[in-house]
């Protein structure tokens, strides 16, 4: 059975490898500072204890005032998986450093997050839209991007834009 790294325990390892790298640690995940993220992730990849050779999953989450990039990394030898996160500073021009030089597998997943969330991955060798075409208005997976014209949600008799932020706009009728 794959064991999950405890976020607090992982934060201790990350702090030992790269001092000042951890912004916050919870039970489920370890939040890294964006400016030290690449350095920390490379150290965690090369360290014998963590050995995160395989980047399993990379995706972004819209948190209304900022975005969060989630990395699920695992060690195939030790059979342990961990969840690491990096948050962008703001929503207006979100940017996080790219980890393509640490894991090649991040290339397409970062392009996808750029396409659908508009997060710039600094240092990505070829950051461009992959699923949508160039010039597509907006980034569809952002929460303020409404799925249908007029802001009406399919199947729901409610205007999505009516609810103020940070309340999620999509709520079925009770």
């Amino acid at each position, binding site marked *: 059975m794959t064991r999950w790294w405890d976020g607090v325990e992982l934060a201790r390892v990350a702090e030992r490898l790269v001092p000042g790298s951890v912004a916050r640690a919870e039970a489920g995940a370890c939040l890294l500072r964006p400016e030290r993220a690449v350095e920390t992730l490379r150290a965690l990849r090369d360290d014998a204890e963590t050995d995160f050779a395989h980047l399993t*999953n990379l*995706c972004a989450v819209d948190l209304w005032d900022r975005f969060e990039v989630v990395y*699920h990394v695992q060690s*195939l030898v030790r059979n342990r998986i961990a969840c690491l996160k990096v948050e962008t500073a703001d929503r207006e021009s979100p940017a996080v450093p790219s980890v393509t030089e640490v894991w*090649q597998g991040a290339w397409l997943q970062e392009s996808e997050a750029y396409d659908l969330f508009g997060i710039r991955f600094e240092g990505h060798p070829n950051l461009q839209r*992959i699923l949508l075409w160039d010039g597509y208005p907006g980034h*569809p*997976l952002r929460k303020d991007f409404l799925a249908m014209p007029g802001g009406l949600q399919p199947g729901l008799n409610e205007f999505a834009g009516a609810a103020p932020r940070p309340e999620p706009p*999509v709520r079925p009728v009770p």
Partner: protein
Amino acid sequence: MNDVVQSEPFVMNIGPQHPSTHGVFRVKATVDGERVVDAEMVIGYLHRSMEKLAEERTYTQNIPFTDRTDYLSSMSNNLGYCLAVEKLAGIETPPRGQAIRVIMAELQRLASHCMGAGAFANDTGAWQTPIMWFMREREKILDIFEMTSGARLTCNYMRIGGVAFDLPPGFEERVREFIAPMRQTIADGEGLLSGNEIFLARARDVAVVPHELAINASLSGPMLRGSGVAWDIRKADPYCGYEQYEFDIPIGYRGDAYDRFIVRLEEMRQSLRIVEQALDGLPGGPHSTEVPLALRPPAGEAYARIESPRGELGYYLVSDEGPSPYRFHIRPPSLINLSVLREMTVGGSIADAIVALGSIDIVVGEIDR
């Protein structure tokens, strides 16, 4: 010779409408004569924005979407999603439901590998005979799916907490009747191709992925195992009681297209073993737990993964206690396995690029979602 023949590189489109790309998938290949010097993929022709749509529907309503991502293995996709919701909401599945899920997921793996191995044989020039043999067996699996769930391709059979309905009468006999001919077809396909001189010339040492690159590029499934990494989620992180079944992980040693083909054939044999064991020990009892229709999991996040026919299929769900997921992310093995497309194709000929693409076994519905 180079002094005499001068050639200039030019861009050639492979796809989007070409049988060898297995869907609407395009490779912008820069070729110098017959040699590929650069390859760039263009995707998005089938993008339906399922992740956005799923954020506006309830957890149960999202199950049919997962059928339509990887349309060659809908059962596996249903299973991965249901496991993620169950992990998020803390729902247990009864033993019978788990065993039925295992049988369905393994039959789906057989069906998908029939298509993958057959289409790969087609790409290498073994025109139509092997694929027809495999399609004949796949047809029987689809019939079994039809008698169980009512649909052949988009089954929509798994539910949160179990499966939609119990197995129909006569199911076990149908599956047991199917196993022996399937074994024979795998042996026939292997006998026809594995020692075939033309097949070896087309697939051996073509599109080699060394194991360091395979791990660094986040590959999974037969792509990773073909490169010699014995990593199978069914063994490493068992779900649905896979730890009870006895099976082996086949691996390749050279990491070439041939090894990936052989790994797929061997995996089919292992799947048959699992199906037999699951049928032998099929427990009684309910097939599903009661789950509220308007499920509201507690706030939090969950990442669950399964070994789908194409690799690690993960679902990352974030809940804000609402009736629909706050974030719904699919980790698509087909897309991520394409990370090494350039390494596999550059330096080879155009014909080798087709073999490389066939050996990844992509499903474009899953790449684009």
